[in-house]
């Protein structure tokens, strides 16, 4: 099957021609299959946010192309605009973009811009709020009166309500407490299961993406330096560490056990994995 979204030699230079010239991404070739869940990790400043803002046409590449369903999204103005609705982007700290008087109105901002009918809008707002984990009794409240977590859910619902084919998150769990993170990740996984949306998620939390992504991309200094399944990527612990990335803690535990001489596989990245590996060792009659 053809990839739903694809980039060719995508390069972006900020402040070209000034003393602050900086190449934020350099020749990125990327493809996402329909329904895939892609995790993007990388140190701060490695170009992740710049990259994903190209995917819905918010930033124009200095060179290279972005193809949605095989068509260049910058071909005409109309196409770029249409892309905004087909590729949803939830920014980092999206709660700072809320502006309407009520939660309901804020969530309906996107669908309204799509010029949908009242009925269609209403249906989408309710559906999106459900996916984002917002109860309907918040609808008439001011978004500014909500808790931090609820604000973020409102903002996420606002993008989900456009029913994008590709949904991109930039660090969706940043600044949430552990239980908030977990709930949000569950909501997102649930949303994906029900809608089949392609998801691209930038995350600083290795645990989050390790457990959920089909494929991981590792960004470093404007390039993709590593990609593959989570187990591929996390079997390169030493390299990840030199990039200043934190590896899931259980991967470190597994690594330490290997160093101590236990024949545990290299690609452990969830507690579940490690448990299974240890149970298997016991069954094989291994005693420490």
């Amino acid at each position, binding site marked *: 099957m053809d990839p739903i979204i694809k980039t060719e030699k995508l390069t972006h230079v900020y*402040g070209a*021609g*000034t*003393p602050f010239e900086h190449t934020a991404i350099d020749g990125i070739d990327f493809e996402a299959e329909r329904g895939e869940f892609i995790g993007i990790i990388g140190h701060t400043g490695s170009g992740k946010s710049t990259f994903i*803002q190209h995917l*819905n046409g*918010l930033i124009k590449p200095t060179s290279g192309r972005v193809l949605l369903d095989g068509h260049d999204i910058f071909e005409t103005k109309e196409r770029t*605009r249409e892309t*905004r*609705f087909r590729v*949803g*982007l939830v*920014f980092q700290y*999206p709660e*700072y*973009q*809320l*502006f309407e008087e009520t939660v309901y109105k804020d969530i309906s*901002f*996107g669908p309204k*811009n*799509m010029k949908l009918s009242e009925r269609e809008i209403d249906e989408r707002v309710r559906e999106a709020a459900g996916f984002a984990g917002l109860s309907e009794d918040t609808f008439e409240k001011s978004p*500014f009166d909500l808790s931090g977590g609820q604000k973020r859910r409102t903002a996420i619902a*606002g*993008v989900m309500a*456009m029913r994008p084919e590709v949904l991109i998150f930039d660090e969706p769990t940043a600044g949430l407490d552990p239980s908030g993170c977990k709930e949000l990740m569950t909501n997102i996984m649930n949303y994906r299961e029900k809608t089949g949306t392609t998801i691209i998620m930038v995350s600083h939390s290795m645990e989050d993406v390790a457990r959920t992504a089909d494929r991981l991309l590792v960004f470093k200094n404007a390039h993709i330096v590593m990609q593959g399944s989570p187990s591929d990527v996390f079997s390169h612990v030493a390299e990840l560490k030199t990039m200043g990335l934190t590896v899931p803690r259980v991967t470190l535990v597994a690594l330490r056990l290997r160093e101590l001489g236990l024949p545990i596989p290299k690609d452990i990245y969830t507690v579940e994995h490690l448990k299974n590996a240890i149970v298997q060792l016991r069954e094989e009659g291994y005693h420490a």
Partner: protein
Amino acid sequence: MLKDVTLGQFFPGDTVVHRLDPRTKLILVIVYIVALFAAKTYAAYALVMIVLIVCVSLSQIRFTTIMKGVKPILIVILITGILNLFFTQGEHVIFRLWKLTMTWEGVRTAALMILRLIMLINGTFLLTYTTSPIALTDGLELLLSPLKKLRFPVHELAMMMSIALRFIPTLIEETDKIMSAQKARGADFDTGGIVQRAKAMLPLLVPLFVSAFRRADELSVAMESRCYHGGEGRTRMKKLTFARRDFGALILGAVFLAAVFALNRVWK
């Protein structure tokens, strides 16, 4: 787009111009402006321009960068030019059209006025390009400190200025971010009539104000919890000191001003 606003932007560097004490630079900019407005003859104008070019070269800032500062007020400059062109009284008429008269005197005045405005902006931008905002407000505070005797709130003014300058880039960045976020939800800031455009600004302005107030609140808490209580007894982390180059620069500034006045008399 908003990134083009370079007002108050500082380009770090290590040239003589960068190293001068901010007080020296402030005084020299005033000297420069006085000279610019005092210049009446071509020779005097030429001298001011040469001095500007030498200073910009010394600072190693590109001329194109310096010229960028002119862009935001190009309209003002053009209107000034046009007004001067048609409303200057003169004898040597080029043409008459209904009530408009264009004279050679008008052309001359307009050209000089445009040149003067552009050079005025270039000079002041050279100051902000080569002096960090902190150094600039520190310098201003020290220069104005005699006014404290008259109970003029010099410290508070300088503090307000440095906070404002500090937050200009932050607010620009924030505006860009919110704009992008709303565009991602299909907001359209560039098309439609005036009413429609004004309405389209709402999703930008509300979050911007909310965040500005939040920042102000956080900053005041942070300042108070570090016992900030105004200028009394405050010491500085970086003490400004006049070096030999500052005295040299000030002397050159005085010579320059005198030369401009002299040239005004010599070549009429």
